[in-house]
């Protein structure tokens, strides 16, 4: 694969993580445990959507074939999406969403911190903005994991079960398929392996403070960075893309 194609795929992978995570968070609106939480999850989803839009636009520009953010979000098929499976699966209960948010936003915070130094100026600019937003997201997930883990017997049990459910999908965050050596050497991309230890340390600290146990489970067999997705991704895309495809060119 040429560096140019790898560059497009790298930006798309980052965009798709944000876009699909945002779509899932949006499902909580009007269904969260309390009104403040509806607002919080909508806000976090909106930050991710904003990042996704900037990244999709950039991916289209780097690609140079005239595809804009909408073409990339609404008119790609499932196998062309490069997001990790962690973000696409059903929301589960509130504890599952918080476990996922903790794993994802801690990863994103490390990623954006590192990408502020990217030689791709647009990526560096998105990163400088996104790192501040991710800070709030990590903090929100952390507060809930602490509250539920160190709460009642029932909340503790469900928070632990949520961690066990999400943990196998966290390993894929460190799959560097989308960040080949050539792209890392040119300073455009960051190998996620470089911050895996930092990520583990931060997540472990929250898990232990929440009186929870680190799951002892094997990583799931995944493949999101290759375009291989779970069954649930199909339903998500059907909902997300249906209006744009049923009524091409429709505007408000």
């Amino acid at each position: 694969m040429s560096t140019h194609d790898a560059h497009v795929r790298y930006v798309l992978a980052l965009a798709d993580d944000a876009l699909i995570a945002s779509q899932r968070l949006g499902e909580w609106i009007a269904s969260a445990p309390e009104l403040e939480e509806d607002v919080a999850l909508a806000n976090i989803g909106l930050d991710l959507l904003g990042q996704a839009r900037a990244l999709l636009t950039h991916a289209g520009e780097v690609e140079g074939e005239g595809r804009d953010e909408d073409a990339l979000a609404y008119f790609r098929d499932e196998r062309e999406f490069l997001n990790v499976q962690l973000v696409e699966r059903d929301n589960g209960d509130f504890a599952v969403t918080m476990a996922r948010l903790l794993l994802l936003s801690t990863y994103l915070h490390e990623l954006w911190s590192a990408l502020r130094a990217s030689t791709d100026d647009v990526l560096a600019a998105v990163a400088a903005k996104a790192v501040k937003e991710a800070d709030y997201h990590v903090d929100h997930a952390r507060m809930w994991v602490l509250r539920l883990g160190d709460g009642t017997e029932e909340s503790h049990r469900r928070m632990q079960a949520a961690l066990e459910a999400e943990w196998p999908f966290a390993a894929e965050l460190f799959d560097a398929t989308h960040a080949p050596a050539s792209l890392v050497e040119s300073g455009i991309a960051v190998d996620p392996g470089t911050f895996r230890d930092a990520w583990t340390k931060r997540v472990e600290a929250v898990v232990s403070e929440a009186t929870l146990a680190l799951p002892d489970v094997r990583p799931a067999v995944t493949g999101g960075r290759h375009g291989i997705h779970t069954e649930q991704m199909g339903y998500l895309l059907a909902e997300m893309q249906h209006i744009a495809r049923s009524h091409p060119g429709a505007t408000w």
Partner: protein
Amino acid sequence: MVTTSTLKDAREVAGAVPDPEIPVLTIEDLGILRDVEVDDAGRVRVSITPTYSGCPAMEAIRADVTAALKSEGYDDVTVDLVLSPAWTTDWMSEEGRRKLEAYGVAPPTARPSDGPVPLTLSLRCPQCGSPDTRELSRFGSTACKSLWVCNTCREPFDHFKSI
């Protein structure tokens, strides 16, 4: 053809556009108006920057800036969205902070120079001035605000988050 000298200063016109979410503040007060350039032919190029990546007000601001400049005789207006350097609440003017507080929104506190956002900040209630307040939610009615309540006057209020 009009010469720029007969027109109201483009920066002044663009800067006076109110923020659609917090209309008491102008985009100049907020620090999201980055640059206004007028070339010899009278074409205006405005740069604005979002407070948060997903701020839905950017499209409205872009339209409002264009309309304001057109009504002052600038016919050729381009509004660019710039991401770098990332906006910070430090760019909010002193005047903006005062207006925000008078409007009932607690202005941003000093931004932490680096590292994590502090969890507990003591805020003064913009209604009664009491320092006895607590945070209800880190996320409020817009991306840039959090939700607080005053323990003294019992009124809820918004806080413009430091970022």
